[in-house]
């Protein structure tokens, strides 16, 4: 039973952990552990971040979210695909050489039925091996943003995968877990030494890493211990048991900052929070308005927009840690401009008169669906919105539930009024349009359907002329800004907390990149 072996290994590692003092050990925590060590099995943020310490992709993002070479040293576009020059002299943790064959294997693996990364690589129709260190990803048409989508497609060693019978990612129907769930063999800066899921994972520096001299990081060893309860997580930092907390509650940052020996860092996150108002149905399910859907009236949507005081939310609910916005995609994503980012403002009187004009002077009743375990202060924002909308006579019934029950309501389009947050991993507006605005978009829970926006969404998939493409995106956003189908609140801010003897540069995608971490 490999579980026993593994556990024995972990105990050895644990004993070592208590003795090794001379090294730079980064002990850190966050809410959720990686679900699996298999790089293609789960497209989930903590899993991607964790595996990114062990595995590498062709391209990566640096701390500022710029695309940088990783296993590929350079790449060039052509009308039928992209050609990548691979880094030479790279070895996997077990000593095997990294070659084009591994890239082909990994992309094919990511395309497998049981992979969770099919979406990212589905535009790749085939892979040509030009030589041992050059591959070409052939696409059906031009794909201007392909490299952007590849940062999470990690490369595995084909030989190791075959030897351990993990040519495919773990399947739902399988009876037993596969070898790659707990074992890993990447090219990355850290090697997995032991792993007890939800308990403790220990990684050690890869002495043969190619990037040793290029990156400033001096961490020798990482000990990761997930802590679900937020207060407990902060307590662990306050008591000095961990060096770094990825996701301390925003409201605790002030206190942490004020504590001697601790410091915090914040950065705007690539995620916007907004409310959706269903305009697809003729009559809202939870409203006392019968025979009509108030949300179809742009006056009502505008009144809602003006009634919600985003500055108050920022100041009181978010403790200043958010950026109120008028567009549901954050700065840094292609399409966001300072002009579009301007919020609609707060004007209670105008909101009331708009409501009266729309024929709802006495307001109406509607249910707000809200997740309670997904976004920063999600439930509290909703609560604040309830109070604010009450002032224009709208009686909002709040249903705050775990995300697992919240999201299906949006996808099944059965929610009248809901909160959602949207992150943009590709840093391109297309990702926003295709999911949230395009008529058939799978997260378009409000039934928004604008012919021009649909058209633009299609056009920018293949448009390679950058200025022209940018103009199209800008046009779509202006239509949206005018029609106000969603109610933008703010862009989220990330706050990382750490001891001040360690410098952990913060990244907008909330991924810890230990290669940048420096012990002073």
């Amino acid at each position, binding site marked *: 039973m490999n579980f026993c072996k593994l556990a024995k290994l972990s105990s050895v590692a644990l004993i070592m952990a208590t003795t090794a003092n001379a090294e730079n050990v980064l002990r850190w925590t966050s809410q959720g552990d990686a679900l699996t060590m298999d790089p293609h099995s789960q497209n989930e943020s903590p899993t991607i971040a964790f595996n990114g310490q062990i595995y590498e992709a062709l391209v990566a993002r640096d701390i500022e979210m710029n695309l940088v070479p990783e296993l590929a040293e350079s790449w060039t576009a052509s009308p039928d695909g992209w050609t990548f020059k691979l880094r030479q002299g790279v070895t996997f943790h077990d000593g095997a050489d990294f070659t084009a064959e591994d890239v082909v294997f990994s992309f094919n693996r990511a395309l497998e039925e049981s992979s969770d990364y099919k979406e990212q690589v589905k535009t790749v129709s085939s892979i040509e091996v030009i030589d041992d260190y050059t591959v070409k990803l052939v696409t059906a048409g031009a794909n201007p943003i392909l490299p952007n989508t590849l940062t999470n497609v990690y490369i595995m060693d084909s030989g190791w995968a075959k030897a351990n019978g993990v040519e495919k990612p773990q399947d739902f129907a399988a009876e037993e877990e596969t070898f790659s769930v707990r074992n890993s063999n990447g090219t990355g800066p850290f090697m997995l030494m032991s792993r007890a899921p939800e308990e403790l994972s220990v990684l050690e520096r890869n002495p043969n890493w190619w990037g040793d001299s290029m990156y400033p990081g001096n961490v020798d060893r990482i000990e990761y211990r997930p802590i679900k309860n937020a207060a407990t997580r902060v307590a662990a930092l306050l008591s000095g048991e961990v060096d770094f907390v990825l996701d301390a509650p925003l409201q605790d940052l002030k206190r*942490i900052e004020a504590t001697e020996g601790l410091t915090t860092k914040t950065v705007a996150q690539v995620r916007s929070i907004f409310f959706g108002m269903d305009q697809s149905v003729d009559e809202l399910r939870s409203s006392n308005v019968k025979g009509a859907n108030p949300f179809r009236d742009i006056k009502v949507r505008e009144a809602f927009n003006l009634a919600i005081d985003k500055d108050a939310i920022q100041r009181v609910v978010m403790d200043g840690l958010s950026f109120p916005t008028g567009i549901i995609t954050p700065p840094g994503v292609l399409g966001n401009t300072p002009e579009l980012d301007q919020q609609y403002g707060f004007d209670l009187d105008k909101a009331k008169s708009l409501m009266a004009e729309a024929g709802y002077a006495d307001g109406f009743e509607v249910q707000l669906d809200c997740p309670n*375990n997904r976004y920063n202060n999600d439930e509290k924002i909703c609560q604040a919105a309830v109070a604010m909308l009450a002032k224009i006579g709208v009686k909002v019934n709040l249903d*705050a539930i775990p995300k697992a029950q919240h999201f299906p309501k949006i996808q099944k389009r059965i929610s009248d009024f809901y909160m959602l947050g949207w992150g943009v991993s590709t840093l391109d507006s297309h990702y926003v349009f295709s999911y949230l605005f395009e008529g058939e978009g799978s997260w378009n829970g409000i039934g928004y359907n604008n012919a021009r926006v649909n058209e633009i969404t299609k056009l920018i998939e293949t448009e390679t002329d950058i200025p022209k493409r940018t103009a199209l995106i800008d046009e779509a956003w202006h239509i949206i800004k005018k029609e106000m189908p969603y109610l933008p609140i703010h862009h989220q801010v990330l706050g990382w907390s750490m001891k001040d003897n360690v410098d952990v540069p913060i990244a907008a995608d909330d991924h810890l990149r230990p290669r940048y971490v420096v012990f002073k």
Partner: protein
Amino acid sequence: MSETNKSSSRWQRFLDNDIVYSFFTTPGAIIAASITFIAITAAFAAPIIAPYNPFDPAQISLWDGKLPPAWADGGSPAYLLGTDNQGRDMLSTILYGGRISILVGIAAVFLGMLLGVTLGVISGYFGGLTDTIIMRIADVQLTIPGILVAILINGIGRAALPLELREEFAIYVVIVAIGLTDWPQFARVARGATLVEAEKEYVQAAKLIGLPKFTIILRHILPNTLRPVLVIATIGLALAIIAEATLSFLGQGIPPTTPSLGTLIRVGNEFLFSGLWWITFFPAIALIILVFSVNLLGDWMRDALNPKLR
């Protein structure tokens, strides 16, 4: 004999009663009863005595959020115990929240008691197959720990309700969830008491008179099983309030728009390390004092109603 005389003698007899005497000579019982009484009164009079109505969203101003108590730096005299993260007055919120906690507690205990005593008395009186079935169900339920049952019933209840009714009915779902976990306790006690009482000769005498079974149960057996049931109910009230708080703490209970004390503590707990101690401290103290006094009362009652321990 004049009417006043009669009533004074009745009063005299009331004071003469051993339990009443024990009450007035046990300081703990008096304090506990007073606090419980004050808490219940305050909770039910909340709309009258609370400075604000925290359940009316139109009265809340987010800009007043996170203010410390009046006596602390930055506190406002308008908010004696400060405000919570939504700008609600803590004092009013605690009063209203206490009302919900007490309401949920009493209703849940009452439900559990109604169900448990009915089934327990029936089980004990009729015996045989009825008894076996009822008590086996109780055993099965006792097999799964109460808080898990409550989480389960609560989860199923919420899932089964239509979306638009969920928030409105959340409180009833919690009541049912806690009440349904409570009943086996009552059933066991009531059954035990019934078995004892049914064997007593006054019940046989009642049978000989020819009274129907349900008259015997209602008039004779039920009143005599109430003492132990009362004790269980008091202790059950304290446990039910804690259970509600725990459910709410796990995010499974009362929604934060109309918070109970447990919800307040859960929400406030998130602000413990950020220095906003009053958001969790005052509700926690309120909860502890409430539960403590109910427990103290139950404790005294158990001793006082158990003549053997006197």
